[in-house]
């Protein structure tokens, strides 16, 4: 299978690989997937409490090249977005941007799930803190 240039670029030069302190109240962490299914994504956002804007996003992914590219792209898109704007990111946007073939659509679904899980985690912390 040939990969699109964008997938190859994200795979070779992944953006925002790393971890944020997951106990931090301003950090939301999403961990989705399962090792036996062949992909696990950890996606984290740090939300500026004053503006509600995501000023940092990090990922670590165990998965195929398309899964790595999907999560790398997601972290790029998340930065500078508000929490509500982030929730509007759809897996189909990722499919289109990376030209993912049908067998790799699940990678984009996982990335969308990871975004939603990270934001849900952040919101939970906010509510618990209030």
């Amino acid at each position: 299978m040939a990969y699109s240039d964008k997938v190859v670029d994200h795979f070779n030069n992944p953006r925002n690989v790393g971890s944020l302190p997951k106990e931090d109240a301003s950090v939301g962490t999403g961990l989705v997937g399962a090792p036996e299914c062949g992909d696990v994504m950890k996606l984290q956002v740090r939300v500026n409490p004053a503006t509600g804007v995501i000023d940092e996003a990090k990922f670590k992914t165990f998965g195929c090249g398309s899964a790595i590219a999907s999560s790398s792209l997601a972290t790029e898109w998340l930065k500078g977005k508000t929490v509500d704007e982030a929730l509007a990111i759809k897996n189909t946007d990722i499919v289109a941007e990376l030209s993912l073939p049908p067998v790799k659509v699940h990678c984009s679904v996982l990335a969308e799930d990871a975004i939603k899980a990270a934001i849900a985690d952040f919101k939970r912390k906010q509510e618990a803190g209030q």
Partner: protein
Amino acid sequence: MLKLPIYMDNHATTPVDPRVLDAMLPYFREHFGNAASRNHKFGWEAEEAVEQARKQIAELIGATAKEIVFTSGATESDNLAIRGAAYMYRDKGDHIITAVTEHKAVIDTCKRLEKEGFRVTYLPVQKDGLIDLGRLREAITDKTTLVTIMTANNEIGVVQPVAEIGAITRERGVLFHTDAVQAAGKIPFDVNAMKVDMASLSAHKMYGPKGVGALYVRRRNPRVLLTPIIEGGGHERGMRSGTLNVPGIVGFGKAAELCRTELAADMAHALALRDRLNAKLHEGLDELYINGSMEHRLPGNLNISFAYVEGESLLMGINDVAVSSGSACTSASLEPSYVLKALGAGDEMAHSSIRFGIGRFNTEEEVDYVAAKTVSVVRKLREMSPLYEMVKSGVDLSKMVWASH
């Protein structure tokens, strides 16, 4: 000078040996005759060349020339052996025994026969990939007509105790077929010493051309009869009709001869490179898991799981090296390798596996490059792996509850 990309996927196919190609070329040019043409020189020449190849292939496996039936490849050979014997001996019994790690050409043929009313026992394998001979003995009933167990596995390179299986089947009066595609020409293989009744062979796995294979069919003690699955002009003693692929067969014969005369050197070469690769990977990385028995294994095979790294991403990282993975992402079915799953190590180990297949034309320099590249890519991917991070921070992955999808 190192030439990229490096081919290290010799279980998938092998390059044609230049000496094989040289032997074939005249049979595309001047000697283009049909081996079944009985009344002119073109036919006679072709027939003579085919008979020469038959002898060369027979010699490789300790058979006689008349016991070699040419086919289009090992998939057809497996189909012919299993279906041919099942139909021929249906009056004697309707039970076949095979193993879960067999090639799809065997498994799917058995499944087809099940739909037609035959009964099939799929023997499990042990953690090392070997079948349990005790279970084989127990599985044989008076309705069993055929046992089909491969000699060497195409993914993990594990070599089954073929001689022991042959002793059991011979004693119980059951036919024994073995898919010897990965083994013949790579390790000693003798149909009489191993009491094999049928063996599938393929030219392109032994430095010959694609599109030609053979089925060894024993003629004496016992004489094996098969119902043909391809009907027509009655070629190949009626077992396989169809005009013979003369240039392909000539190449197959030459390839078999080279494998026979160079077996010891080929084995030593592959083993030395395989062990070098294995040692270098272990020097550079921790948490490597070898899939299948290291002791009962083809010399050129190394199947390793790189824990916490997904196989397809590893292939993508070492894209100037041609190897393959048991990861679901590299298979059409989106399922991880059923062979690795059968070893019981868990799906995540299958997803993380790479098969290195070393052959006659690989060099030490190539092995060193592949090892260094693999080590650096695995390190990079582990830095990106949430699983690796969790394990290093003391999380027990087996106790995690995953949101599966």
